[in-house]
């Protein structure tokens, strides 16, 4: 019965969290966003004390139920393990704890957070790992499906589905997601919850508390007939039948053992004195936990097919002696920015780097393909902005709404309209007014804060082509000018980020 409740909650959590990451329209976010906010690392980073205390308390009472009910990466491993056991009855066995490794990884994680090396912490956060897999591997498939449905809807004169860009926003992100899938998936298939009990810093943190959990699986030696069913079904490998002990710091309270015990020797209940402290299995030396590395099948899926623009570099200028047809459009490239642009609500680069776990939830909901994973060493996997596919629209505040870690604070449209996240810079050599000699006012026309005025290139000749004059102090850095600039592949006007966002 207890196991069924656990399973129901787990399925619900996994579905909701997956939906949260797959929903590129941002429509389920208001209803499901809390699932992300009660994840341990995001809650810690966001200084969400209510969630953190709640989780700690729950762990002290019920053990690491978090790992089996709320953690999406844990649930993902359960799914993999179950699939791997559909054929062939591979069974688990007891293994000594990798205590030293666990504590080292936890120490590293805490150090990374304290020192502000957010990207390292991001790599270890189980929630973010799941988010990256969902965003990089699953969402493109959903988007392709959506585009197919949109085509179909078009024929039926329905506007239920709108086409979206499917694109590969970051190769490193894809590689990391594939590696995570490979490593965690392999470990889960072979060794159940080994990842959670050897590497995952959240597992270790909760394990420190769950050693003292009030309720836990208890073994009644008098009823036990040594059939070893519980050991074979224990994903955590924490039931030491020789010594009749269960390691509560590793038990994820999946309740498989209770469920499978034929004699009722195992029960979930209050620990009496007989099973007070879990065994610190010191017997065998710590085995290298991470032995099953590699062999991730890195067949790269061609996501980009749907959105691939003809990347043939052809000059603009076309032959007007004929009618019809389209000029080729050279794709824009993201310029090298002296300072990266972080999303409105991030407040500053420092705040953003310290809080972001790289879960890609904001990337998943960004409607204009502005957010993507950064590739810099210290900000690796944390999102940054680029305007080659779209720009940060004035009416959109989705990334702040979804961020569970406090890396991007929620802001209103009004606040956004007066928030400077960067400043536009004009490059004379690229502007069409200079290169082709005709005026163009695309940047000025689309600037939502009217920070750009068109002025004559040659002040002596009012008739000369017009160029943009940017009033930096009014610029929000939204990128409308950069995105809609006709100069390609590099825009003649581009945005440089600011280290600390300012009000204008």
């Amino acid at each position, binding site marked *: 019965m207890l196991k069924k409740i656990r399973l129901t909650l787990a399925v619900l959590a996994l579905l909701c969290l997956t939906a949260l990451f797959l929903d590129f329209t941002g429509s389920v976010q208001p209803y499901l966003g809390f699932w992300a906010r009660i994840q341990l690392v995001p809650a810690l980073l966001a200084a969400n004390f209510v969630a953190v205390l709640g989780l700690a308390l729950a762990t002290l009472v019920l053990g690491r139920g978090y790992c089996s009910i709320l953690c999406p990466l844990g649930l993902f491993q359960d799914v993999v393990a179950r699939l791997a056991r559909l054929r062939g009855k591979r069974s688990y066995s007891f293994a000594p704890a990798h205590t030293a490794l666990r504590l080292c990884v936890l120490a590293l994680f805490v150090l990374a957070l304290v020192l502000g090396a957010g990207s390292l912490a991001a790599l270890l956060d189980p929630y973010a790992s799941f988010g990256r897999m969902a965003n990089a591997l699953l969402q493109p498939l959903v988007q392709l499906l959506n585009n197919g449905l949109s085509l179909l809807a078009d024929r039926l004169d329905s506007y239920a589905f709108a086409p979206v860009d499917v694109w590969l926003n970051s190769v490193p992100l894809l590689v990391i997601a594939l590696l995570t899938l490979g490593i965690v998936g392999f470990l889960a298939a072979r060794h159940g919850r080994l990842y959670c009990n050897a590497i995952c810093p959240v597992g270790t943190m909760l394990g420190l508390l769950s050693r003292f959990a009030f309720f836990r699986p208890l073994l009644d030696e008098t009823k036990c007939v040594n059939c070893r069913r519980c050991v074979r079904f224990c994903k955590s490998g924490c039931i030491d039948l020789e010594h009749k002990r269960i390691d509560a710091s590793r038990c994820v309270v999946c309740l498989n053992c209770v469920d499978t015990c034929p004699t009722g020797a195992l029960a979930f209940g209050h620990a009496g004195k007989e099973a007070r402290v879990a065994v610190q299995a010191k017997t065998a030396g710590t085995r290298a936990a991470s032995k099953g590395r590699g062999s991730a099948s890195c067949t790269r899926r061609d996501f980009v097919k749907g959105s691939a623009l003809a990347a043939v570099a052809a000059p*603009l200028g076309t032959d007007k002696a004929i*009618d019809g047809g389209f000029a080729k459009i050279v794709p824009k490239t993201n310029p090298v920015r002296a300072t990266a642009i972080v999303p409105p609500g991030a407040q500053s680069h420092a705040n953003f780097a310290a809080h972001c776990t790289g879960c890609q939830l904001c990337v998943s909901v960004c409607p204009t393909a502005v957010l993507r994973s950064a590739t810099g060493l210290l900000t690796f996997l944390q999102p940054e902005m680029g305007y080659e596919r779209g720009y940060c629209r004035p009416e959109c505040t989705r990334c702040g709404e979804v961020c569970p870690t406090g890396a991007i604070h929620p802001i209103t449209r009004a606040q956004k309209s007066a928030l400077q996240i960067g400043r536009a810079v004009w490059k004379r050599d690229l502007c069409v007014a200079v290169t082709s000699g*005709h005026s163009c006012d695309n940047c000025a026309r689309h600037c939502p804060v009217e920070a750009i005025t068109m002025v004559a290139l040659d002040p002596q000749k009012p008739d000369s082509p017009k160029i943009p004059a940017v009033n930096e102090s009014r610029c929000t850095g939204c990128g409308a000018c950069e995105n809609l600039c006709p100069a390609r592949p590099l825009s003649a006007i581009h945005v440089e980020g600011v280290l600390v966002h300012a009000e204008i």
Partner: protein
Amino acid sequence: MNERESGQNRLAQESGNQGGKGRRKTGLSRRHFLQVAGAGAIGAGLAGCDTDERKVKEVRGSMTMRVNPKRGEKVSLLGFGMMRLPSVGGRSAREGNEPIDQDMVNKMVDYAIAHGVNYFDTAPPYCKGKSEEATARALLRHPRDKYFIATKLSNFVPSTWSREASLQIYRNSLRLFVTDHIDYLLLHGVGMGNGMPDYEKRFLDNGVLDFLLEERERGHVRNLGFSYHGDIAVFDRLLAEHDKYHWDFVQIQLNYLDWKYAGRIKAFNSSASYLYGELDKRGIPVVVMEPLLGGRLSNVPNNIAAMLKQAAPEDSIASWAFRYAGSFPRVLTVLSGMSRFEHLEENIRTYSPLQPLSDREMALLEKVADRMIRYDTIPCNACDYCMPCPYGIDIPGCILHYNKCLNEDLILKSVRDKNYREARRAYLVGYDRSVPRLRQASHCTGCGQCVPHCPQRIDIPAQLRRIDAYVEKLKQDRL
């Protein structure tokens, strides 16, 4: 009134004879339409003695022919316009970068010739410059005396204004059609661009018109004429000089909207009634282009469709426009740019034979025009003369989507409009579907290359900006 009956009967027979009753109702549904047609088919097939008027109409007549007084040659009232040829993608070849579907062109030309069509109108720039070649390929499979070739001297860009370059265009047409004579040769689009100065530079100063007159003497050009768009001064001048040039025909835009309102819907094009009147006065045969206004007279708002269907429930909306153009006696042929086989079938039905509009029907179309002019559609016929835009914008795509939404009452005035949410979504989602984001109006730089090429004299950059501003307001919910 209903010469398309036979086709409908065929349709009904293919779908299995259904319904024995249901004659003479005014319902509009498709099923109903089939029932009515099916009843006609059964009536014809089983009860041979039934002398219903239907049975008479069912017998397909032959194509209405008009006589060109110059040589007395007979020209089919339906002329095949080769500007919107089908592409392999199934759309009109003007719409994308796909090549022309030559097999389909051949099939359509074969069908057209088999049904009496003998006037084929092309021009060097059409379909990204591939129309003449595709037309020639299809026509060369038929004897030369089965068809008339109409092509144009399209020296639009200044680089082709020299005598040599212009003659090269003309000679290339002769070469492509493997012939020593062009049946109908037109000065293409006089009045376009800068009007009079451009006309003089294109045809007078370089001696090209004199050359063509000589070619006519030599028999290489059987009929010399011009197609007119734009500055009315050029049209008036060319007609004033009719005694000098003896135009054999003139091609104008004529339809029930342009008859009265051409001046209202474009900057300074004159109304078709004036153009036709001037030509009629001088006895010059008229070739009609844009009888459907690029589809705007077949794809009409619902209330207009209701008006026309009420008068003739079984006739298509498009057939009204064709009958209108065909009803003028001085009209030699009516060009239709057909990109689908079904267009061709339907138009052939409409003109085999033509049933001229009655006075009552004429009056109805006048009322329709009065009502249509109230819709503020942008007068784009999707002729693609403006394309390709150097910045990659799909100009007709952007305008057509706007017009479509306007016709469907989806253009909003304010966020308080009752249908705001649905209309907003329909506009924005439909926009992304019909025009890729990189080809939308937001990318217009206002370079103005398109402006002189538009035969309808649309201020394209201004209209694209208007559309873009509207889209921006929709996106921000700030209408």
